[in-house]
């Protein structure tokens, strides 16, 4: 089986179309989406309608949740006052233009999806707002994968694609008992992986191109895909729709609309 996994489309319809086209060229059996269909970008309704029309299994992203539940961010959502103000502008705009049926669809999205030994989440299994950055502590990373029971955890949210193998993991626990003796237990974890799909519509890797991943279960091969698209069309739509022009400037440079927290030790408290 060959699957494509994409995430963080953020209302960028042009990027979504380009990625779907690229997926078509690779004969995949199934597509999964890790959420954040809306927010920042100019075409939130069109993106959701496309995902629904193609019946793509999708889990709920943090932006999808915010549009349903309202803003209630942990500090990790906004690393600066400026990012927070821009994020709120984008939220308010999206909140105004979103169709009721789109909001309903976002509300019923699951927080995670499973397919055999694969698990799909937006941020982390704990929270769709939590960032699993590539440099996050190995113990934390392993704990997040083990908690799902899967061998490969697919996530998004950071907007930077990566594959992280957690092999030869050993944990030692020393417990002090009531009689003051100590009991030591060791665990060995089999190979686990975290695969971040990057972002279709709001890249943060320094180029405007969309990213997603293909996983071939038969060969156990993971391929990070980077797809060029007409990002200037999205930039023009951002300005035309009345979103802040700085979003277009940042998108064209692969800088994301508002930067995310850089602290890999932060545990989301939302």
């Amino acid at each position, binding site marked *: 089986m060959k699957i494509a996994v994409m995430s963080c489309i953020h209302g960028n319809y042009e990027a979504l179309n380009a990625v779907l086209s690229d997926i078509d060229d690779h004969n995949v059996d199934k597509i999964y989406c890790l959420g954040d269909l809306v927010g920042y970008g100019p075409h939130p309704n069109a993106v959701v309608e496309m995902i629904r029309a193609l019946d793509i299994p999708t889990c709920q992203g943090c932006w999808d949740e915010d549009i349903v539940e309202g803003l209630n961010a942990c500090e990790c959502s906004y*690393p*600066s*006052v*400026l*990012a927070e103000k*821009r994020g709120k502008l984008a939220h308010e705009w999206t909140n105004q233009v979103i169709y009721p049926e789109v909001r309903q669809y976002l509300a019923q999205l699951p927080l995670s999806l499973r397919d055999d030994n694969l698990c799909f989440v937006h941020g982390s299994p704990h929270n769709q707002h939590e960032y699993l950055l590539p440099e996050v502590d190995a113990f934390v990373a392993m704990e997040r994968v083990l908690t799902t029971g899967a061998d490969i955890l697919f996530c998004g949210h950071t907007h930077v694609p990566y594959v992280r193998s957690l092999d030869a993991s050993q944990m030692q626990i020393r417990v002090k008992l009531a009689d003051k003796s100590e009991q030591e237990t060791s665990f060995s974890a089999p190979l686990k992986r975290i695969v971040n799909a990057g972002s279709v519509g709001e890249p943060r890797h320094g180029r405007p191109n969309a990213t997603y991943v293909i996983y071939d279960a038969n060969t156990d091969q993971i391929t990070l895909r980077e797809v060029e698209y007409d990002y200037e069309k999205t930039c023009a739509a951002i300005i035309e729709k009345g979103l802040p*022009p*700085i979003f277009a*400037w*940042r998108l064209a440079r692969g800088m994301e609309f508002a930067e995310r927290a850089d602290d890999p030790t932060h545990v989301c408290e939302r």
Partner: protein
Amino acid sequence: MPSLNITLVSGPPGAGKTTWIRQQVNSAAETAVYLNLGSGNTPIDSTYLATEVAGLTVLPVEQLTDFLAQPLVGSAVYVELGFHIDLTSLILPDQMADCQRVTVLPPATRQTEWRNWADLVVTGVKTGMALSQPHLWRSVLSGQVLDLASLNTFWYELTHGAYGTVQRAKGIFDVADGRSLYFDFVAGLAETTYLELNLPLWCNGRPDRFSGIEVVGEALDQEAIAETIKACCLEDHVIAYYQQQIKDSLEPGDEVA
């Protein structure tokens, strides 16, 4: 009337006028006086030199007449002229007529108006851009306290063309942790980080000292620049929160304002 050792310094934005003056002051044994003509109500260079150069007296423009009447004998006087000042129509007090005229120019430039005016041409730094019609935008920010992460984002955007073509940008900003920071950008030069000015941490209300920004460029979206800076500024209760943290972390001997 004692004779004065006055040097007028001109040149295009970012060529290195202030840096050259700083080098002269640092290498001389005598004390020095600095005056900036053209900085208006945004004395960025004056504030920077006053805090960073020992033995330098910064003279406000409005005190020039009094100073010339009773100058500091034995001091070298450096008068920096903003790039936008028309040198041909510059009228100086009689006491300054005998001064030396220095122009600081990027290598291989042919700005004849500066060359023709100067007694001495100093080769400054090579800037990456020469604008046909440079526009100057300034804003006083005194009393404002900025979130540093936001300021870094704004500064990156500003100096990478998000708000128009920028040839030169400099600013002094008070930030949440009480420091006053000097930011300096010249197109074509290596990116630099900010410099912490040698001023006490400000931890009692809104800072009562100068901060501000100056940008030279073309097609500048002034409204967007101003709005973005405003979005970086902190509200009173947030400032108070950070200042309490500063006070709680002070060590004996720390200088605060």
